[in-house]
Each structure stands twice: as structure tokens, then as C-alpha cells.
């Protein structure tokens, strides 16, 4: 298990920060106070997925329906637009494609990002 930590002030609400955890490039996100972290490598062609936009979801209940879900949980890779759930790393464009997930948490005035979900 590898961990890194940095001051929480470096990740205010709405911000993202690129870090290295055990030699792996990781993007850490603060979305409305919730913290998420994913490897900065798209499973499709290894694009810098964590540099992409965070968007709501365009969904549809059936032909001719356009339903926009106005949250900010979809991370869109800047190369080909593949979208991933920021919470889980699961792909929307291809459900088999998954970005490796990392585990951020707050500890007092720091953010800790770990390769493992297990805490102290």
C-alpha cells in the first residue's frame, strides 16, 4: 500500500490536483466537498483522463428523449471523450473499461490519498 498526503487547502471545493502515489500519476478531485481520486490514464489509449472536463450525464429513457443529469460526476477524457464515473472509475462509453480508482480521505487539515480503501 502506498499513500501520499498534502494540505487540504491545496484542494478547495471544485478543484483538482495531480499527485504521484507509489509512482502512479493520480488526479484527486474535490466535487462539492466529496473527494475522489483516479489514475491519470484512460484505459482506451492511455490519454490523460484526469485533465478532462467534469460533466453531468446525458441520459435517455428511450428514443427521442434527452435527459440531462446536472451533477458533475462524469469525467470526460480529453482525447476521445470516453466518460467515466468519478466515484468508481467505471466507464460509460464502454462498461468493460475502467480507470484505476484510488482512495482519498481527510485527516485533520490534510488530504491522504491511498492505493487501498483500508484506513488506519
Amino acid at each position, binding site marked *: 500500500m502506498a499513500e501520499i498526503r498534502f494540505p487540504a487547502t491545496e484542494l478547495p471545493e471544485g478543484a483538482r490536483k495531480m499527485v504521484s502515489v507509489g509512482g502512479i500519476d493520480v488526479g484527486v478531485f474535490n466535487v462539492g466537498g466529496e473527494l475522489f481520486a483516479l489514475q491519470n490514464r484512460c484505459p482506451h*489509449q*492511455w*490519454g*490523460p483522463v484526469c*485533465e*478532462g*472536463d467534469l460533466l453531468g450525464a446525458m441520459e435517455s429513457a428511450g428514443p427521442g428523449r434527452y435527459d440531462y443529469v446536472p451533477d458533475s460526476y462524469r469525467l*470526460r477524457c*480529453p*482525447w*476521445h*471523450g470516453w466518460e467515466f464515473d468519478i466515484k468508481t472509475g467505471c466507464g460509460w462509453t464502454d462498461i468493460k473499461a475502467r480507470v484505476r480508482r484510488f482512495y482519498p480521505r481527510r485527516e485533520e487539515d490534510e488530504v491522504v490519498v491511498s492505493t487501498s480503501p483500508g484506513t488506519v
Partner: protein
Amino acid sequence: MTGIVDCDVHPAPVSSQVLDDFLPFGWRDRRQLAQYLPQQWQRYREALGDRSYMGAEYPRPTPRAARGDSWPGNGGPPGSDLGLLREQLLDAWQIDYGVMNPLLGAGEQLNLEYGGALCHAINDWQREVWTSPEPRLHASVCVPFEDAGLSVAEIRRVAADEAFCQVLVHCRTQEPLGRRKYWPIYEAAVEYRLPVAIHFGGWGGHPPTPAGFPSFYIEDTFSMAAAFAAQLTSLVFEGVLERFPGLRFVLIESGLTWLPGYFARLDRSWRLLHDEVAHVSRTPSEQVRAQVAVTTQPFDEPGPPSRLADFFAKLGMDDRVLFSTDYPHWDFESPGHGPLRLLDPVRKQRIMRDNAMEWFRFGNRAHG
């Protein structure tokens, strides 16, 4: 493997004014030079802008159809900054040669004289802004391809310069490319030993699908393979490939997984209906395999190495497949981590580099 050749790179002017400096006499923006010189064509461009057929563009999925990270920091559009192009493409992947295909609408101008002037400007701009400072990049001769006379004049003006490695036309044309009106372009290409590149896109005034106007860009882009198939079919059955044995075409951004099935149907149709085209003496697919190359992007990712090997065996064009990225467009294919990473080393070497080195005679381009 040493080096890579990328057969589809798209440069863009920093702004529409940049090209004005390269417009030939009578078209150039003279105001900054001297107030008393003719302004007619510069005024035309300023007042009316480019004019092609209505409805030519289905909205792309991203601004300027570009990768989100390809916008230079200086505010210019993707593909307009040589430094970023080097960083994200040429240096990032150790690319030995890149072939530029400027898609700036010059070939589709309804005012043919203006289209010719625009091609003139684009070709000079490629040379001065791109190939002179960066010899890894090669240029395409842009031509107003709906008028053979103007196109041949432009080929003759620049083709002796080894910075130019092909003549560029678009896939959707007014008439199928085998028709006689285009033949003078082919004669000039043969004379200068340049392949004719047919690139994705264009607009000949027809609906983008043979069934009419679709609702979605996804249909527009998907149906381009049908347009490429129509062009190949025309080149074969009009007898162009046989009439000009030295003529070579390269399909750019056509995709290629449709080709094996297309070949089977093409040959079968010819066996049944050959009387109508008695001038066609060789099996159509043989002609195409001999005189046509095809670039890799967008590759339809047919999965594991065994399926890739099956596909390339069916295609039968191992020496005619040329690697391309389509940088900086949204469907850019990564040289390192794209679907071709799973190719066997022998095919990979041919496709990523050697085929294009032979096809374009890079490093060995003496004309004659």
C-alpha cells in the same frame, strides 16, 4: 522498431487573416503594405468569406473536432502551433515524418478562381510556416479539384518542391473521381510521381449518405466509408487505374475494416457484369491492392492479436497500410497505445514506418 511515419496530421492557420499574407497578387491583403494597391480579392474574402454548399457541416462532437488538450496556450486553434505539435506528436512519439493534410475548404469553393487562389495561399503557407522550419513535416498539394485546369496549374507550380509528397482531394466530390473531368489531375500527379490522397470529408452538393440527409453526425461520419467505396468503384470501372498504371491513391481516414467485404462484392459484381465495362481487364481488387494504399485511423479495434492477424490476412494489403494519427482531431489514434499495439512485430514495422517510407520515397525523392 525505429521511428514512425504519421500519414495524417492537420495544421491550421492561427487565424483566417494568416492566409491573407499568402494569397497571390490581386488577392492579398494589401492594406498593410500600401493603400493604393488593388483590393478586389481581399475585399471578396472579407465581404463574403468562404462559400461552399449549404448544409456542408454536421456539428462535430468537440470544438473544431479537436482533442481537448490540443489547444495551444497562445489562444490559436488546435494544430496552429508548431511547438505544441512537436511536443504532443512528433517528439512525444519519435515520429520521423508527418504528412500534413490541411482541411481548409479550398477545394470546395463555389467560386473556383477564389478556391484556386486559396489553394495557392495554403500551399505557400505550408511551406513557409511548417515544412521549412520542421523538415519532419511534409505538405500536400491542395488543389481546387472540381476544376482540373486550375488544379494542374497549381500542381505544376509547387510539385517539384520535395516538401510536397502528395496531391490532396476530398472524399465527397461533385462527381465520382473516376470521371473524365478529373483525369488531367491524375496525369499531372503521375508526371510528378505524386500519389493522390483522398481524405475523409468534403462536400459535392449531395446528401452525405446515399439514402439522403440523416439526423446525426454519427451517421454522417459512419457513411464516409460508403463514399470511399463509391470512389474506389468509380476509379476501377472507369478504367482509371488501368489507364494510368503509374497512378497511386491513398485513402486517408477511410477506415479499413470494410475493405475485405467490399473486395469480395466488387470482384463478384465484375464477374457478373463485365460486359458493360469490357475495358476493365484485371480483377478489380487486384487493381486496388496494387495502386491504392490506406491509412490506419480510425481503426475499428477488432480485438485480440489473433483477430488482428485474421483481419490483415483477409485484407491482403500488408505493404499498403500506412499508419496515421489524425492529430489533433478528436479521434486521434495514439501510436503507442492504440489498437495496433497488438500487431505482430513484422507487420507493425511495415505499417508504422516502412510502407510509408517506400510509398512516399522519403529520403529518396529526386523527381524524374
